[in-house]
C-alpha cells in the first residue's frame, strides 16, 4: 500500500487533489481511497487530505500517520506544521515553490522536489491571481517525481474532476509534469 498526505491551506484544493490522484490511479486499475482530514476547513487555515493506493481492496479506515510521500501546496506551511511527521525514509516531499529543492532544510533521508505551481496556475488563470488553485499543477509534478501514476491517466482524471476550465487544468498538469525539479 502507498499512502500519501497532502498539506494545503483551505481553498487551495488539497481535498480535490487527493481525489483527482485517486481517480487517476483507479483508471490504471488499482484500488484507491481518498479523504480529507476529518476536520473543519477554513479558508487559509492548514488542512490535510489523504490518498491510499493498493493492488487489493483497501480496508483500513483511519487517517494516515506514516505516509510514504507528502505534498505541500504552500511552502509557508513548512514553518507552521511538521510536514515530515511520520514520513517514511526515502519518501518524497513535493513542495510548491520556485526555489531549488536544496534550499530547503529537510532531513537527508527524504527526497525533495519542487515545482513552481503558483506561476503555472496563474499562467493558466486557475483561481484568482491572489490565491491561485495549484492542485492540478502540483499533481503533474508529483506524477513525474514519484512515478506513481502516468501522465495520461492523470490528465484524464483532472479533465473529469475539476469543476471549471478542464483544458487549462490539464495544460497546467502537463507543464508541471515536464518542469519539476528533483534533488
Amino acid at each position, binding site marked *: 500500500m502507498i499512502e500519501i498526505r497532502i498539506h494545503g491551506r483551505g481553498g487551495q484544493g488539497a481535498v480535490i487533489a487527493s*481525489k483527482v490522484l485517486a481517480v487517476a490511479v483507479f483508471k490504471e486499475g488499482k484500488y*484507491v481511497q481518498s479523504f*480529507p482530514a*476529518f476536520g473543519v476547513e477554513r479558508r487559509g487555515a492548514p488542512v490535510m487530505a489523504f490518498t491510499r493506493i493498493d493492488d487489493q481492496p483497501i480496508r483500513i*479506515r483511519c487517517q494516515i500517520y506514516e505516509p510514504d510521500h507528502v505534498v505541500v501546496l504552500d511552502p509557508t506551511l513548512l514553518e507552521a506544521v511538521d510536514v515530515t511527521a511520520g514520513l517514511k525514509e526515502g519518501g518524497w516531499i513535493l513542495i510548491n515553490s520556485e526555489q531549488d529543492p536544496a534550499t530547503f532544510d529537510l532531513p537527508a533521508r527524504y527526497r525533495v522536489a519542487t515545482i513552481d505551481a503558483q506561476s503555472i496556475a496563474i499562467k493558466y488563470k486557475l483561481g484568482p491571481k491572489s490565491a491561485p488553485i495549484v492542485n492540478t499543477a502540483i499533481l503533474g509534478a508529483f506524477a513525474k517525481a514519484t512515478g506513481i501514476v502516468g501522465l495520461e491517466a492523470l490528465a484524464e482524471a483532472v479533465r473529469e474532476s475539476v469543476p471549471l476550465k478542464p483544458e487549462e487544468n490539464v495544460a497546467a498538469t502537463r507543464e508541471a509534469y515536464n518542469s519539476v525539479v528533483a534533488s
Partner: protein
Amino acid sequence: MEKVIMGNHAVSYGAKLARAQVIAAYPITPQTQIVEMLSEFWAEGLLDAKFIKVESEHSAMAACIGASSAGARAFTATSGHGLALMHEMLHWAAGARLPIVMANVNRAMGPGWSIWTEQTDSLAQRDTGWLQFYCESNQEVLDSVIQAFKIAEQVLLPTMLVLDAFVLSHTQEPVDIPDQELVDRYLPPYDARYKLDPGDPHAFGAMVAPPHYMELRYKIQKAMEEAVEVARQADGEFREIFGRSYGLVEKYRLEDAEVVLVASATITSTARVVVDELREEGYKVGLLKVRMFRPFPTKDVREALAGARKVAVIDRNISFGHGGIFAEEIKSALYNGSHRPPIFGFIIGLGGRDVTPASIRGIAEYTFEHDTPEMEIIWREVKNS
C-alpha cells in the same frame, strides 16, 4: 459502471436508482451532499421526483410521512441533531406503518459541539420502530439504500441506513453503480396497500383507545420479527442479481476463534486488517460484524458466538448510566441462550476520535490477557481514565 465516489454520493445514487418519488430534506453537516446531489439529479432531469424544501428536519420527516401516506416512495437523509429533532415523527412513521427510507450520517451530539462520527444519535432512536442497518463501505451504503426500500415495503416499517461521518460520508473509493434496469428488476414500484386517495377515502391517524392500541403495537413487533427473514431474503436476492451481499451479521475468521471481536460500521473494516495480522501471529481471534441492529438478529448472533471463549464488543457510542449499546444488546441476546461467554464492553472513538489498527489491537490484546472484564465499561484511549 465503477466510479470513485464519496459515501454521501453513494447514498444519492442509491436513492436515485431506487426511484424515490418524494425527497424532503434539510441540510446538516456532514449529510448535506446527499441531498445536494439528489437536487442536481432532479435539476438535470435524471430524477423523476418531487423535491420538497422544508424548514426543519421535523418537517422533512413530516413531508415524507405525507408522501408515503399517499403511496409514494419517500426518502430523506439527516445526521445527529437533525435526527434528534425528527424524533417525534420517527414514532409516527413507524406507527403509521410507512416504508420511508432514510440515511443517517452518524454525528456526535452536542454540546461539546461536534460534527464528527459517533453512533449515539441513531442508536438513541432504537425504540422508535425503525429498522437500522450500519454500513462499512460506500458500496454497502449504495446497495443498502436499494435493499432498504425492498425490505421496508414488505414489512411496512420505515428503515434507516447508517454511515459514519467523514470516515465514509466524505471518503472517496471505487463503487459499482448498478444498471437501472437491474435495480428495476430487483425493486418493483411501490404499491401501497392503503393510501390517501380522494376516490377511495380512509381515515388515518385516528384516536385509538385501550381496547385496540396494544394490538397495533403487537403487530409492529410481529412485523419487526418478520423483517429478520425478509431482510435475509432481500440480501439473497440482491446477490443473485448484483453478485454482492452482506448478511444480517457477517462472520469473519470465526473458525476456532477463542476471542471474538464484535464491531459495526467502519470499525469493522479496520478490524479485519487487525484480525488478519493477529491470525498470522498465531492468535485465535475472529470478528463478528453486526450490520442489522433493528430488528436485532438474536439467533444469528447466538449462532456466531457459540464457540467463543470471550467476546469483545467495540462501541463507538454510549448509553449514559449503563454502557456501550452494542455490548448491552449482545449481552441481552446471549443471556437466554445456552452459551454465555464473558463479554468485554469497550468504548472508543467517541466524537470522531480516530480508531486505528493499534486501537483495535489493544482491545484484542486486553481481552486475551484477562479472564473476565473486571469492569462493566472498559474505556480506551480516554485521557483521564
